[in-house]
């Protein structure tokens, strides 16, 4: 387990997450892509803390902040799904046609 292998795993998670966030039509699946990106970010942050940070506690703090971002993203995402469903009776990104120019 080296820093390089850790970062490559994190890069793979971020890449898969980006693919999901850009390709999925359903809002909840899109949010899963975002979560996967944050999963990779947390792994990279912990990897840097453990291998290059000499135990500086700010590395762990960064991961705690990413977890808070994740909780906020989930809550706002689900609220958006509910709000869009009320207005359009669907949870697809395509149903927000008012955002097209």
């Amino acid at each position: 387990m080296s820093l390089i292998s850790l970062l490559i795993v994190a890069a793979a998670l971020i890449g898969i997450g980006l693919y999901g966030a850009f390709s999925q039509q359903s809002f909840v699946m899109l949010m899963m892509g975002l979560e996967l990106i944050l999963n990779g970010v947390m792994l990279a942050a912990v990897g840097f803390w453990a291998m290059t940070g000499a135990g500086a506690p700010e590395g762990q703090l960064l991961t705690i902040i990413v977890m808070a971002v994740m909780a906020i993203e989930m809550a706002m995402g689900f609220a958006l799904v509910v709000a869009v469903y009320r207005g359009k009776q669907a949870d697809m990104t395509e149903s927000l046609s008012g955002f097209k120019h």
Partner: protein
Amino acid sequence: MTFVDLTFFVCAAIAIYAGWRVFRTDSMVRASFFLLISFIAVGIIMLLLAAVYLGVALFFMMAVEMMVMALFMMMFMMNPAGLNPMNMVHQEKVAMGIGIAAFVALSGVAVFGDFPSRPVPDGLDPVVSLGKELLGNSMLVFESAGVTLLATMIGVVAMTSHRGRFGEANEGSVPPGLEPGGDPAGKPQENDQKQQGHHHHH
């Protein structure tokens, strides 16, 4: 190969494979459980890296979060059980290109980057040092996260309210068409009523 290395490679393979399966399964509920598996594998890797608190916190947080996600899947999705084949994507080629490009670029940074080797010193308790940081120098950051979460709660309640500032939230809401740009699905009742002799004057 030591036990730690072996566990790492197994967990890394599980995390990536489960992450990929999230977008390749027909069932929305199964997708959220695949994501949970991916998070648990990353949590185990964090435990291997001695980030004990973060790994365990990830287990608890994700177990609850993915249950909520599975519930939302059942409430809103057309295919929660995966009984029909399903692939709801747009601009898939572009998305795949973006994902692969990000992976190659970040892996390039990992392989060719010059990072110092400064492991966690012996005798340092990661949980104690994190606690002292959270309630010491970085207390403002930590408290800001709490205030932001409170603001999120208020915003979420406002966004999901039945009644907004401008009337009912679902006023004038019609279901989407079965085809893009088509008539709203499930609205033949008006014609039925006309055939039965009921006249509505609008």
